[in-house]
């Protein structure tokens, strides 16, 4: 063997040894390292945020969670981005559509430097990440540093849950054509209704200069009643969600039960039932995603957007009593009851 050949051989051996050592270091490094997780909350550390923190503690992850509260102020989020860029935590967790959209940014953003960039992030409590352009599909983000959790229950499950409560043939949905997600959702509900052989009465909100009016809600519900609707369903719509009180109270007055995809419509308004993912559980699920990234070294782009295996069936007992539409016994064995009326 020539001298050159020997040198090349030696160099190759050295290179191999170094790369082995490097990979060994890379494998060992996280064992001793304490991770920093940056939690960007929208309105305080509520159930999902707390669920995440609990999971981190219980799982034994060597991690510190730094919680920052935007207090529903969008301007604060720019400060968060600056802080993240300066401190470079190991992971960022974003709560809600607003926080995620502003910190992670859309996948087609012209100027990515405005966002947190190449720091791994997990989003939670985002109603429709595709609609918000955070991910390209509901199942996987297709972005190298982004993954998250899904907390919306599919429409077909919602309809089946309604049927489990009470058999019906015709139901209605009031939606806002001004909101893209509401329009898209109404179409999804229509397909689910067709699949189950149900009649769907679709009632779009009248728009005035492109804006719906709250006062039109009672008349639309009256129209639904006149057209023989036996159930009303609140799908994805911020406008309806914000005006859930007038919506659900009118429906109860007209004797129509309301099922909602928003838990708050049941817990805080007068909707009869909701199938929802508990926020605390969604937080724990985000914690599990964090463990997969930090401890198991799975890249965010390879981590599917996770959904819960089980959902909560929430029944508003005050509404059930008002409608004289008590839940069937088969549901009572596992449903979560809210707004329990005082016993006589």
């Amino acid at each position, binding site marked *: 063997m020539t001298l050159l050949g020997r040198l090349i051989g030696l160099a190759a051996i050295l290179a191999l040894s170094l790369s082995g050592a490097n990979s060994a270091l890379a494998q060992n490094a996280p064992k001793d390292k304490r991770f920093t997780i940056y939690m960007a909350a929208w309105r305080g550390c509520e159930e999902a945020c707390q669920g995440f923190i609990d999971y981190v503690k219980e799982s034994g992850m060597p991690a510190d969670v730094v919680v920052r509260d935007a207090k529903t102020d969008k301007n604060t989020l720019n400060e968060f981005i600056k802080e993240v860029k300066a401190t470079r935590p190991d992971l960022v967790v974003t709560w809600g559509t607003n926080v995620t959209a502003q910190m992670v940014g859309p996948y087609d953003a012209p100027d990515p430097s405005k966002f947190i960039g190449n720091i791994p992030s997990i989003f939670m409590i985002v109603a429709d990440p595709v609609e918000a352009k955070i991910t390209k599909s509901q199942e996987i983000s297709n972005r190298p540093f982004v993954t998250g959790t899904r907390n919306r229950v599919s429409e077909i499950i919602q309809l089946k849950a309604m049927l489990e409560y009470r058999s019906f043939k015709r139901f209605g949905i009031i939606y806002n054509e001004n909101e893209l997600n509401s329009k898209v959702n109404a179409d999804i509900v229509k397909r689910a209704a067709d699949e189950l052989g149900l009649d769907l009465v679709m009632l779009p909100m009248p728009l005035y200069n492109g804006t719906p009016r709250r006062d039109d809600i009672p008349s639309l519900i009256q129209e639904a009643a006149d057209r023989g609707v036996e159930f009303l369903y609140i799908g994805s719509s911020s406008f309806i969600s914000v005006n859930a009180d007038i919506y659900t109270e009118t429906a109860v007055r007209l004797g129509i039960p309301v099922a909602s995809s928003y838990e708050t419509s049941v817990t805080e308004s007068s909707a009869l039932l909701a199938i929802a993912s508990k926020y605390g*559980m969604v937080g724990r699920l985000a914690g599990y995603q964090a463990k997969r990234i930090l401890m198991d070294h799975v890249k965010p782009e390879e981590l599917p957007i996770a959904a819960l*295996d*089980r959902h909560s069936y929430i029944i508003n007992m005050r509404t059930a009593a008002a409608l004289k539409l008590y839940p069937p016994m088969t549901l*009572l064995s596992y449903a979560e009851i809210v707004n329990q009326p005082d016993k006589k």
Partner: protein
Amino acid sequence: MGSEARRLDLALSRLAFWLAASALAAMTLLVLNDIGARAIETRVGLSLDAIADSDRARAEASLDFGLPVNGLGSAEELLQPPSTLAEGPDALSLRLEKLQTVDRAVENSRHRIAGTMVAERAVSDSHGESIARLYVTRSMAGIDAALAERDRAITIGLSLIAALLALLLVFSPPWDAIRVPAVLFVGGVLFMLASLGWQATDISRQAAALAVADTAGHLNRALSLGIPFDNLVGMLDYLKQQVASKPAIGAIEVSGASGVTYAAGSDPLGQILAKWTSWLGLSGFVSLGVEQVLEEGVRLKASVNILPVLAEVGAFALVAFVFFVSGGAMLRAIWQGEGRSLYEAVRSTLPLGLFFLLLFFCWGGPSALSAAPPVAQFASIAVAFVLGLALQRRVRLFPLVVIVPAGGLGLWLDGLPLMAASALTCGLGFHWNEDGAKPVHLGAALLPSVCFAGITAVGFAVETLMAKGAIALLMVLVFVLAEIRPKVEASRSPPMIAGFTLRILLDNWIWLCLFAMQTAGFLLLALAARQMPALLFGNSGPALYLLVTAVLYAAGGLLAGLVGTWRRARWVLFELAVFAVALIVAQAYAAGGPVLVNTAIAAVLMGAVGRWMSQLPFTLGAGHFRGARVLASGLTAFAAAGAIAQETAIPEQAALPAILVYLMMLAPLAFTIIAGMRIRPRRIFSGSTG
């Protein structure tokens, strides 16, 4: 001297009888007790698994609601069993342990620890990670105490039976002396069955009480939410769901103060038993009902599902019946008439016993004799047996030339040649005498197989060498008996035996019909045996079921003899019985009836058909040996059916064709019967003994 020798002979004979009877009684009771104890433990385990699975689901739901794992108002507190079930020798307890580190690898398990049985379950959060471990523990003190009591009672009972039999044998001949000990033995078996049934009921009652407590919890929740009892929605569906998901409950009824009642499930047998136990004043011992009073005077009543318990006790009773019949038949066959016909009985029984043992070795899961495919084993037995029948008394040297090397080869290498050589020997030693084919000999011949099934059922593995040795020993005995027969009773040997098999194949088509019919019938028994659940007897289940049906077959033959000499009645009954067999088995497969029960009933009828078969006009032509010929054909059919059953992937698919074959073969037979009736029946029967 002659008198003294006879007295000594009698004394030795009685000693042998005492030893055989005592050993049989001991084996029966001990095997039954062991199987029963294991079945009870299995039942406890399954019940505990069901409770743990239900509790896990409730724990997960409670944790999803946000309840803490431990402490005040926790999921653990919510899941605690009612106080009535948390105390005493069968006490249930529950513990929920929060995992320090979430872990997906927590496994579900069940094990016994220091007088308790513990079922362990992983409790997952709503995305599938284990967050807690659930332990449901049941005290086994009550079960263990009952087992110890039963062991003591068996020891005392067996000692009493042996002592009483010994005393009576001094004064009476064996068959008279055994009557009172036999009654005691039957009493002992009944006591054991009652004890096992009581224990099984108690385990089911505990599970039913827990299930009722769960249902009561749901109802109480509904009432506490302010829903009036009369306005409860979907009660019937709910109660049906409860009965369907809680196998310990047979029927459930909820009644309100206003008289509104909802009910689901039907358990007529349980209700009848509950009435009887109440009428007999036994309600305190065997409680078949669970009752709970809820809020607002609502009453919840449920009956314990007694059917699985009765099925289990019935299965034990059948096993005891098999032991009793085959053991009793052996004692009767050997000692009837003070051992006068000992040689005759042994010569009639031993080849059959060896033949059955060969077949049951093939049935016993992986065969202890050979690694060859089961179909090859059954087929080699059938073919070699027929060959043995054909060669009987014709070529004296040839069998020896075949049997010795094949037997030797089978002993050292794979056992298939040994099986074939043994089956050949069975054919050679087959006793061509109508008197030798009585049901009692069939019953006695089953005893070696019963012992084999018994020892495997209690968990002993039969070693290959042991099995081969036993088969080789029996083969030598059968061969020796076959060889010395002409010197002893040459005058009673059939003159045309050798040509019999060839005549069957070539000339006598009606015998082929009979053979096809018998094969189809035995195939139905074998197919049912394959469906025997492994819950009670493990791998021995199919062999034990086949033994039960074989004994029932023999019993059917015995009962068929009660018809007496009224020949035309036999012909009519023969045809009716064939129809009944087809209908009963078809009902099981086509209408979803209980296959094991229906086939067992069919086995009795098939036994009667077999007995009447030998007394039909066309078989009467075979003369004095017709019964033996029907038996020889039946034995070959039994082996052939085994081969077919082993090759059948889905038993249900083969059952209906087998029923059709069984029924179709009736047509030529019926035609021949009618012809026999019309053409000088008196002449046909003139030479018959009936």
